[in-house]
């Protein structure tokens, strides 16, 4: 049980405030998935903000006047991210993750969130 629980909760990352409000280098999807370089990414910065469709003020304004082949390449990228973000707050369904609930231990790992769970408070 503890293993399943920690596997889920180990995905957390610190510095959320800086990632969200800072220089907005990363797209919401990247922050969510933890797809973040700790090293300051200076070369790949432009690319990243385009790919993630980070449409906040000040992202990717000047790089439009590039050559033609660059433009077509960028369009492909854009099309992919359009499919990903469809302006809906519904969370994307990950069916692989759902399969795990067939496992008894995984299912038991949230038992204490219900009133039928253990009333013992560990550590008290």
């Amino acid at each position, binding site marked *: 049980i503890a293993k399943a629980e920690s596997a889920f909760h180990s995905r957390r990352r610190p510095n959320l405030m800086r990632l969200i409000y800072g220089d907005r280098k990363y*797209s919401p999807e990247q922050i969510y998935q933890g797809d973040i370089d700790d090293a300051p990414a200076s070369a790949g910065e432009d690319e990243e903000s385009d790919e993630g469709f980070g449409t906040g003020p000040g992202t990717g304004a000047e790089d439009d006047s590039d050559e033609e082949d660059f433009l077509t390449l960028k*369009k492909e990228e854009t099309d992919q991210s359009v499919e990903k973000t469809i302006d809906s*707050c519904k969370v994307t369904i990950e069916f692989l993750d759902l399969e795990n609930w067939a496992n008894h231990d995984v299912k038991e790992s949230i038992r204490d*969130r219900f009133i039928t769970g253990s009333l013992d408070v560990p550590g008290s």
Partner: protein
Amino acid sequence: MSKIVKFEGHNYFRQRLVLATLAGKILKIDKIRPNDANPDFEANFLRLLEKVTNGATIDISYTGTSIVYKPGVIIGGKVYHDCGTARAIGYFLEPLVALAPFAKSPMNITLNGITNDNVDLSVDTIRTVLLPQLKKFGLEEGIELEITSRGAPPNGGGRVTFRCPIVRSLKPIQFTDEGRIKRVRGVAYCTRVAPQFSNRMVDAARGVLDYVNDINIAAVHYQGDKSGLSPGFAVSLLAKTTTSVYYSAELAGGAGQAPEDIGLQAARMLLSEIRKGGCVDSIAQTLTLLYMVLGPNDVSKVRVGELTPFTIQYLRDLQDFFGSQFKITQEVDNDKTVLGAAPSSLIMTCVGIGYINTNKKTT
């Protein structure tokens, strides 16, 4: 802060129009689908926005790739709107819920279209999860979503009526105790398929959710003119805790899918949502954070399990329109002092801007 807020791209279109309306700021969006034809639903949403507000101007460029929106006053009142079939009713209703309390007169809006699909929030989840969230901010009785008829994709034909009272200002919230889940509720419906489909979804879902005895999932079979224009079936589930926290999940089925699979997967999605923890369901995060920002000059505090990408962008947009930042602290509850709480979650804190609905007369 500047009076004009600028964005690029078509994503997060609705929230930016809603925030501009509430903040009273001019919104300029460029590069809206520069390489594709614009789909109709965005224009349709603009038409709806024009119906519920007064004095707004929307200038769309000749190519349709940029718009300038000058917000007007939210008037509310009795409105009818056909949502079409490109997006479900939820796409249109969700932003209306955010605007409704600040209208001049109570909103009474009837929407026609698709009630349940796997892209937008279903009307069931809006009714059972989003609307109860409003009450925590001090909205009195009278919030109502009546589902008159169902409409499955592709042809829709469903109809709902949303009524919402107006307020002058919101109350701050302190919502950090998750409590423990004591009951599970839900609705499984089907239209223009065998009536047993609903029961088969219910049975499959119940099998997974056997943590508590208090489970009640209604199986409804819509007939005649209440069943819309297309065959379809869907289930929406809700877990409620001792402190009135709601967790939800929903799934719609299509041709060739077994109702058992839909029921089973929806139930597992509910378990995934429960595991995230927090006091706000993923789908209610944006509305909750918006109302915390609009609240009085007082501290509001809420616990969330994990921020969705949609919410992360929403936080940035809230900053751009209102200048409000949330303090986000990670709380690792190793001692498990809160019974049954998820071991780590985020505490979101902010001071409200003291938004006043000047349209509502003080009595």
